[in-house]
């Protein structure tokens, strides 16, 4: 019973008393065992459902494998060469980047505005938080149903409201120039609540004293927001922007459900292209290669994130 306790105590003392050196290694090896024991269940799932598919996917990308099981032999980098010359792939990557750029700005700014408004201390906080955050609790399919209905060119609420204030009707999901923006609007409505909560949490962590000092110096609410709140939020903003970019790059659900990538491929993101070449076109090897090109893009963004946050904290 007490052996663990004594060995632990002696291990802590080993530096000063070399004569009691012996128990230390046994504690170490026991720790090695318990450590990996505690890690084992996670590690098992991690290896089977993450590491293995990751490696297997890479091997697949080097083969001509198809869902019908045709060609399992290695064909080297042929899939990658084909993908790099594939205009449809580039178009889907372009759509993904376009969506990421035009969605990130409103998703950060609107979230900041919402949090700043609530941070003033309005009554019935729960009601505001509920209305801003509730859409985040919905499944993408529910959001898509809501918005497909509202975007309906003839029966939709949005076009009806537009024509009531004298604006022309818009073919929201059927116009290649508008469809991506329609998806951005639905996405903004759906997910801005998450960023809003992160901002609100960060704002409430800013010490009161800053504001007290500023108000004694006669700084008004605007002044306080721009000289205290915003600078204090800088690390949060960097983090939210980067998280948002990574999230937006993975866009698939709402596009697939609302436009299926159309009209004429104008909204098809790269994840959908991977999905279609793999499951509709049955070209698993090729699809895996496109996955890895997409992964490369994510890695580049993540490395940039690492470098930026590192420089900030340094």
């Amino acid at each position, binding site marked *: 019973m007490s*052996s663990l*306790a004594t060995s632990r105590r002696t291990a802590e003392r080993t530096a000063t008393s070399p004569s009691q050196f012996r128990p230390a290694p046994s504690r170490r090896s026991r*720790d*090695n065992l*318990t*450590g990996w024991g505690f*890690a084992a269940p996670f590690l098992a*799932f*991690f290896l*089977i*459902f*993450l590491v*293995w*598919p*990751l490696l*297997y*996917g890479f091997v697949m990308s080097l083969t001509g494998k198809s869902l019908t099981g045709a060609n399992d032999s290695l064909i080297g980098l042929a899939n990658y060469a084909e993908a790099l010359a594939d205009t449809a792939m580039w178009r889907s990557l372009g759509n993904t980047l376009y969506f990421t750029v035009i969605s990130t700005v409103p998703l950060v700014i*609107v979230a900041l505005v*919402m949090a700043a*408004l*609530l*941070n*003033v*201390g*309005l009554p019935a906080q729960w009601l505001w*938080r*509920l*209305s*801003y955050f*509730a*859409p*985040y609790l*919905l*499944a*993408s*399919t529910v959001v*898509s*149903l*809501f918005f497909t*209905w509202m975007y309906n060119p003839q*029966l*939709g*609420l949005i076009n*009806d409201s537009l024509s009531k204030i004298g604006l022309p009707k818009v073919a929201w999901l059927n116009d290649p120039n508008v469809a991506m923006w329609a998806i951005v609007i639905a996405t903004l409505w759906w997910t801005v609540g*998450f960023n809003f*909560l992160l901002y609100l*949490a960060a704002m*409430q962590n800013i010490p009161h004293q800053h504001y007290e000092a500023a*108000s*004694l110096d*006669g700084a008004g609410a605007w002044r306080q927001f721009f000289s205290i709140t915003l600078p204090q939020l800088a690390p949060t903003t960097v983090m939210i922007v*980067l*998280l948002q970019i990574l999230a937006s790059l993975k866009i698939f*659900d709402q596009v697939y459900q609302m436009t299926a990538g159309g009209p004429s491929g104008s909204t098809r993101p790269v994840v959908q292209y*991977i999905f279609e070449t*793999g*499951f509709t076109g049955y070209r698993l090897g090729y699809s*895996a290669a496109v996955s890895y090109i997409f*992964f490369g893009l994510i890695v580049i963004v993540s490395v940039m994130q690492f470098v930026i*946050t590192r420089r900030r904290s340094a």
Partner: protein
Amino acid sequence: MATQTLTRPAPHTASAAKIRKPRRKITAGKAAVTAVAAFLAVLWLVPFAWATVTAFKSEADAAAPTVSWIPPSGFTADAFVKVFQDGNIPLWTWNSFYTSAAITAITLVISALVAYALSRIDFRGKKVLMTVIIASIIIPPPVLMIPLFYQMVALHMIDTAWAVILPQVIHPAMVFVLKKFFDQIPRELEEAAVMDGASRMRIFLQIILPLSRPILAAVAIFVFISAWNNFLWPFISTNDGSILTLPVGLQTIKSAYGIQYAQNMASALLAALPLILVFLFFQRQIIKGVATTGLAGT
């Protein structure tokens, strides 16, 4: 919050006039803030309101060319009745519930165990393990879908709940969140137990876990919401109608009901209801959970 901070120093600051002046300005500003906040709130509630109104219309009214908030032939619950008779929504809700609950439970257990080891036990290879887990945060799930699907076919798990559950239990970011929390628990609390010869597992179960309830709840909430709403993987790994989760089932409804707008909205609302109700009851915990895990997840 600004008003609170402005009024608070009053008792011990020099001149009351100095305090009152900015306060009046804020009250004027506060009206504007309320107006803007209300405008946004209404904007954010419109889709819910419009879906609700549509769901309570007759199909004829819903498909009428003129948009009406009050339907000409009155409100009716026909669409809900039809959706219920259809029977799929309750089944899919149940599927979503038990798969999400299983995912959450397994995630919590395996993540807390590994996080405890990373936080408290000195074992060989710990640093490498930590680095690998952190690095894996950047792997986007869509990259894994093709090989994972193939793997599930090989394991004969396609169209079973296992296919939905097992690949969703790995949340490297949550391991990191838990480890960071465990790191903050003072080691002295364990010393006494160690002296008494308690095993690691006992320390973990009887000391660490009870102290970690807030973070365990936060992680559970985060994982549950993301599992409940996940679309891509359940969509790929299941086709059989009887085991579909809610998001995937709804996608099939959309094509089945076609232009049955009222029924579409009724199903969407029924699908949205469980999490919204849970949110109303556990608002504080959910907000805290999402905020802490969301912030710490990087």
